[in-house]
């Protein structure tokens, strides 16, 4: 009996030794961890691109982890990891979060990244700016996004509109919305020309289309209640009043989940949609025959203003292997790797020039239109580069949109309230 035990222990020890010998090459490498918020299919597509780094060199081993971002909680997990001194070596950061994270001392400066072989001059300056805070570079762009207007050409034809002529001004937009909206016998909405709340993820964007802005970098003042912003939200309120708050709510309740065949735009319930560059991926997944067009969102004066944001990558304060992390960053920023990432994401890298193969292989056959929209835009706008960004965003999502769309108060009063709250917040966090 005792011999059996000895044999068992001996086998275990031998196995451990064998395991250690086999794992030896990996142990010799510097292991770094990269937290990304991509999950599911997106993560499966991107992971091999990131992990290819492990086979092209034998000095560093990167471990890519998908960290759940349900309800935006990657941020909470990241903050607590940094505070606990257990930061990952690299972290996925959305461009609008950069000032907040950098301002709170959670990201390290990447000003020395050119010494690792990254040629920043190959990137569009405007996108590099989104990774900066207070003049310093804190994050680098991997997959940027633009938010544009999509329209359903079939519904345009049905409504007697030219399917190749989208609206360019707010007046035209209003007119098109009326023509594209249909009701049943009981007066219930069965098709809506456009819905500002579907998906409605960029509520402050309306301000820019009316010539407003959220923050004045010169005076460093919040400008939530600027007259143009009030006009933008009066337009939103008038939209709600015209189609009826309850009728709109009942109509929206019938929409399926965003990334599904029941998407309101894909099913033709909404004829025009303000959405991200990834929308063609959604359309292709569920309705490949769908006839759609894309353009910049209309504005009050016909000038094209395009909202930009993106998936960036940064090195947290307290990262255990910042040198190795920067070497991996340099690999990610190689034009051919950036193109692979953006092909998987149905996006366009921030490079000034992309290869012909990239355009030819792009799954979105209208990708040239997106490049044109960004290049020709009169203004590329983004979230204010202030460290109280999360709070400001919550004010638009939790205060402005509900109060205006539920007709609780006038846009002027609501925006005055946000102005007051933000000034108070800035004073409080000084």
């Amino acid at each position, binding site marked *: 009996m005792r011999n059996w035990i000895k044999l068992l222990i001996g086998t275990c020890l031998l196995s451990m030794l064998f395991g250690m010998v086999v794992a030896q090459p990996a142990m010799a490498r510097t292991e770094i961890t990269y937290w990304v918020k991509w999950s599911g299919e997106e993560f499966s597509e991107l992971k091999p691109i990131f992990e290819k780094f492990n086979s092209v060199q034998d000095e560093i081993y990167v471990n890519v982890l998908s960290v759940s971002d349900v309800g935006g909680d990657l941020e909470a997990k990241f903050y607590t990891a940094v505070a606990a001194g257990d930061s990952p070596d690299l972290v996925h950061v959305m461009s609008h979060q950069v000032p907040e994270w950098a301002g*709170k001392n959670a990201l390290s400066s990447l000003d020395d990244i050119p010494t690792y072989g990254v040629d920043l001059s190959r990137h569009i300056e405007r996108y590099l700016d989104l990774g900066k805070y207070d003049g310093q570079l804190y994050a680098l762009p991997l997959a940027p996004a633009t938010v544009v207007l999509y329209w359903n050409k079939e519904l345009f034809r049905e409504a007697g509109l030219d399917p190749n002529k989208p609206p360019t001004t707010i007046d035209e937009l209003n007119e098109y919305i009326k023509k594209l909206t249909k009701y049943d016998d009981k007066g219930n909405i069965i098709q809506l020309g456009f819905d500002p709340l579907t998906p409605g993820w960029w509520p402050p964007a309306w301000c820019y289309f009316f010539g407003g802005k959220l923050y004045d970098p010169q005076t460093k003042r919040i400008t939530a209640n600027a007259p143009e912003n009030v006009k933008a939200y009066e337009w939103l309120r008038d939209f709600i009043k015209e189609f009826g708050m309850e009728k709109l709510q009942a109509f929206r309740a019938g929409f399926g989940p965003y990334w599904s065949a029941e998407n309101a735009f894909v099913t033709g319930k909404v004829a025009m949609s303000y959405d991200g560059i990834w929308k063609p991926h959604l359309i292709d997944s569920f309705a490949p025959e769908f006839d759609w067009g894309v353009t910049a969102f209309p504005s009050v004066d016909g000038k094209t203003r395009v909202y930009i944001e993106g998936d960036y990558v940064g090195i947290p304060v307290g990262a255990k292997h910042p040198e190795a992390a920067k070497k991996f960053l340099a690999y990610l920023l190689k034009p051919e790797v950036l193109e692979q990432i953006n092909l998987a994401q149905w996006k366009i890298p921030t490079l000034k020039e992309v290869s012909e193969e990239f355009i030819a292989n792009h799954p979105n056959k209208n990708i040239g239109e997106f490049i044109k929209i960004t290049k020709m835009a009169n203004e590329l706008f983004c979230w204010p580069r202030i460290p109280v960004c*999360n709070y400001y965003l*919550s004010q638009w999502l939790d205060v402005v949109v*509900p109060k205006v769309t*539920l007709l609780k108060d006038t846009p002027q009063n609501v925006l005055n309230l946000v102005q007051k709250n933000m000034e108070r917040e800035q004073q409080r966090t000084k």
Partner: protein
Amino acid sequence: MKRRTCTSLRNLRIGLFFVGPWLIGLTVFNIVPFMLSLYYSLTNYSLLSPPVWTGFNNFRWLFEDETFRLALWNTFYFVLIGFPLTQLAALVLAIMLHSIGEKSMKWFRAAYYFPGLVPGVVMALTWMLMMNPNFGIFNFFLSKLGISSPLWFDDPFWAKPGIILLSFWYIGGSIIIYLAALKDVPVELYEAASLDGASMWYRIIKITIPMISPAILFNTVVGMIATFQLFTEPFIITGGGPDYSTLTVGIFIYNQAFRFLHMGYASAAAWVLFVIIFALTFLLLKISKGIVYYRGG
């Protein structure tokens, strides 16, 4: 005598050995954070930089903060309206179950307790579907009855009643406690009352309620504290919206701490909530002294 002392010491050592892990856990995970939060409530602390002493500023900001006042109001709404309704339902159901045969009662008791085993997040997601204005089962039945369907969690007026409605899911725990207390009520009391011609209503008011008053007090105190800390259901379903109509103090604290990294401010809000809960529990126990009847003591 000496031998007894030795035994006592040995017992103490063994006792401490067994209770030790719990004591360590209590100190590390409860007492230390509890005291630290009191300190942080008097500072400006972003978690990533050292706390800066600000005195009572956080408390002053809190009482000027309209969002916090709204969160307090919503929380009190759930405590004063939602919680009594669920307790009343649990009590009525327990009395009804007690009156039926032991065999059926056992089955129903399990059936009522069973939903409570479902984790809060799963329950919240399920109720979101059940209360969907267009294809939810609630509005399906309401429309069959010819009642116009509310938008539930999309409508600030209906969102709070919607959350209250789903809190009935968890009344099984209270029912079990009431049933146990009801079993202890001496049958002779009911027999005597019946002989005197007392009605059922009169028997419930004059015998059942006073006799199970310790259980009512227990459920009230525990349930009230839990309702003050309401978080999971509104957080999952509405995130505190629409228009802050379901924002509870719990969600307010979470947002301040983890969305905006205002740990000091969140700690101050947590302490305000703690003081309210402590004061009301103390008041409840004080008032109950003259009302609750403890048999044999």
